[in-house]
């Protein structure tokens, strides 16, 4: 066990997989010699060579497309898209190709590509360095979608994704790279070393997809979240001291419906929280499933806590971000007696 921040944990996962499996390669913009704009691949090119940790042209569509071709030729590419905001030029190759190759070839071909990309706000990145587009990809049949909330999960999930024979988009909440974040930008930043999930096994281990993590169990209500909002939810529930059960989905596709529904059946009250915009966001799918599965158990309408239905403005980052105030308001309203 060692203290790692999320960047170090991700780096460790890729280091281990490069060492373990000669078919694993890394590719992306500025990831090689430089080690990535967020340093996630630092030192790996020096260790494994320019031919396995490959700098690419600035062409997200070309990166995804060539990664697909490599995977058809027996490699397991891990492609970095520098910011999730820049994944859209690769959208056609992801939706029309990566997601469908196994299906359209009746399983004769498959593309084990992992796409890593930093998402979310909180670093004053403005509207083009803060997006959370995960919801869009959950609507695409054939792609798995993952988002960790801490270093331990990040490493174990990334190793699982690299070994998975299906394509995966692995979203990294960049605000969590250096430490947990409770939603209050005015508090001094705290490092992962102060958090239990900052204790990371240095060796090879996996965290399964489709298995949500019950961060905190409780009886009064259920909070379902993933990524940065897990920490905001914990802080808000603690501050209000409500006996909340807090679930970290970890993987959105596949989705751990059982854990979600058994919790809501128990509590009868539920808040769904994510940073992405509200309208047609992934929260809507979670809410819909609960409504369909647990209708008779619900004692109050499920509330969504989300970013607003606007781009993420540079000057109003904290008015946009769904912080503790927004979470608390939702907790209040689901606790109101019927």
């Amino acid at each position, binding site marked *: 066990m060692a203290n790692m921040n999320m960047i170090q944990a991700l780096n460790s996962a890729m280091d281990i997989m490069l060492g373990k499996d000669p078919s694993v*390669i890394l590719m992306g913009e500025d990831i090689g010699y430089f080690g990535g704009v967020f340093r996630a691949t630092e030192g790996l090119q020096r260790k494994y060579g320019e*031919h*396995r940790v490959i700098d*690419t*042209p600035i*062409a997200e*569509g*070309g990166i995804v*497309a*060539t*990664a*697909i*071709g*490599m*995977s*058809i*030729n*027996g*490699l397991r590419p891990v492609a970095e898209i520098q910011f999730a905001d820049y994944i859209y*030029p690769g959208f*056609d*190759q992801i939706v*029309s*190709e990566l997601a469908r*190759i*196994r*299906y*359209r*070839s*009746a*399983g*004769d*071909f*498959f593309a084990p590509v992992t796409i890593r990309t930093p998402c979310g706000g909180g670093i004053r990145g403005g509207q083009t360095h803060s997006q959370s587009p995960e919801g869009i990809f959950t609507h695409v*049949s*054939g792609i*798995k979608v993952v988002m960790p909330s801490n270093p331990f999960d990040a490493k174990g999930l990334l190793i699982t994704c690299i070994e*998975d*024979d*299906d394509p995966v988009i692995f979203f990294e909440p960049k605000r969590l790279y250096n430490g947990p974040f409770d939603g209050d930008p005015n508090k001094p930043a705290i490092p992962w070393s102060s958090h239990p999930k900052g204790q990371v096994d240095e060796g090879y281990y996996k965290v399964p997809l*489709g298995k949500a993590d019950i961060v905190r169990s409780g009886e009064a209500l259920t909070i379902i979240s993933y990524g940065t909002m897990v920490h905001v939810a914990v802080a808000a529930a603690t501050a209000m001291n409500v006996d909340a059960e807090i679930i970290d989905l970890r993987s959105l596709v*596949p*989705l751990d*419906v059982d854990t979600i529904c058994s919790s809501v059946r128990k509590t009868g009250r539920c808040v769904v929280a994510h940073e992405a915009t509200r309208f047609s966001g992934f929260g809507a799918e979670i809410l819909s499933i609960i409504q369909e599965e647990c209708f008779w158990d619900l004692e109050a309408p499920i509330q969504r806590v989300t970013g607003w239905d606007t781009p993420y403005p540079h000057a109003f980052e904290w008015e946009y971000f769904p912080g503790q105030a927004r979470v608390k308001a939702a907790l209040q309203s689901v606790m109101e007696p019927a």
Partner: protein
Amino acid sequence: MPRKSRLHLPHVPARPGEKPDFSYVQLSPAGAVPRPQVNARVKDVAPLSLELVRVLDDNADAVGPWHPHLDASELQVGLRHMMLTRIYDDRMQRMQRGGKISFYIRSLGEEAVSVAQGMALRPSDMLFPSYRNQGLHIVRGIPLVDMMCQLLSNSKDMCKGRQLPVMYHSRANNIFTISGNLATQFPQAVGWAMAAAIKGEDNLAATWMGEGSTAEADFHYALLFASVYQAPAILNVVNNQWAISTFQGYAGGEQRSFAARGPGYGMAGIRVDGNDFLAVYSVTQWAAERARTGGGPTLIEHVTYRGAAHSTSDDPARYRAKDDAEHWPLGDPILRLKAHLIKTGEWSEERHQALTAELEALVGSSWKQAVTFGTMSEGPKLNADLMFEDVFKDMPENLQRQQALMRKEQS
């Protein structure tokens, strides 16, 4: 508009009612274009992207430095593959008209591209075709019955009913699954070639798209990555002059050849007579040897003509001159190779007729066999449960549920 538009629009030489006009096609005499060393530098081969490499001249003689000097037996095999491709196309077209299959796409007039290239490459080279390369599948020996079963989406369909007709694939024969989305295969092929290089293997990747598809981003990505990493890949643009109703000028062909994009990206570009079996074979050999010896990628533009409708959903009488294919200056690839073989004493009308009959019989018997595995109307049918498989490697819980609901719905 207040003032008159100054927007330039590409010239379309002949529309319905006008007489075919191919004066825009820049030709070089057969044998006229020099053949550089396979390891020549890009700037020294640049002229190849504007000339037209031809071997078979108008007297059906094979001339010039690109003459591949193949054994007659090989040429006869090539002729057979081209004839089979065309006979297969004709029959499948009729089957679609007869309502036996939902859709079909012919390669009439373009048979030399797929057949000559398929023969010039190694079986271990990976192919990333478009929907108009059936010749490749035939060269690689995919049984006609298997191809027909795909067209029928029947119980033996290699795609398990998921793809439109003609979207074949063959893992065993190194042919990648065809996409309905234009151009996507191009950069995938380059990625495959990059992986071959990374693994230190000397197989190459070859891929095909139509000239209209070069407008898509994936064409650009493919040329860029192939050039940057000097990937062992052959990128083929089949310029059959039309993209459904859109003339090649709208893809940029009016200002410059498509082959000229190659040198623009720092790679070899060759413009070849796509209806000349020998020329296509020869430039493919050149590009393959160049790729295998570390010389990097080559972009090949095959100048040919779409002899038929775009697909069974299309009616070219709405947008191009009648009988234009007959006026195409580069003739018909089958007739040209046939004439050459006859002239060299390696073929005859009799043998040609006999072979035609043999191949028609083969296609006919294959169809009879294919339909025993089911048609659109009669069984055996694929089990609809298959709809839910292969979305992921293992079927997730929500798909299992939906599968059960579907069963209930159908019962």
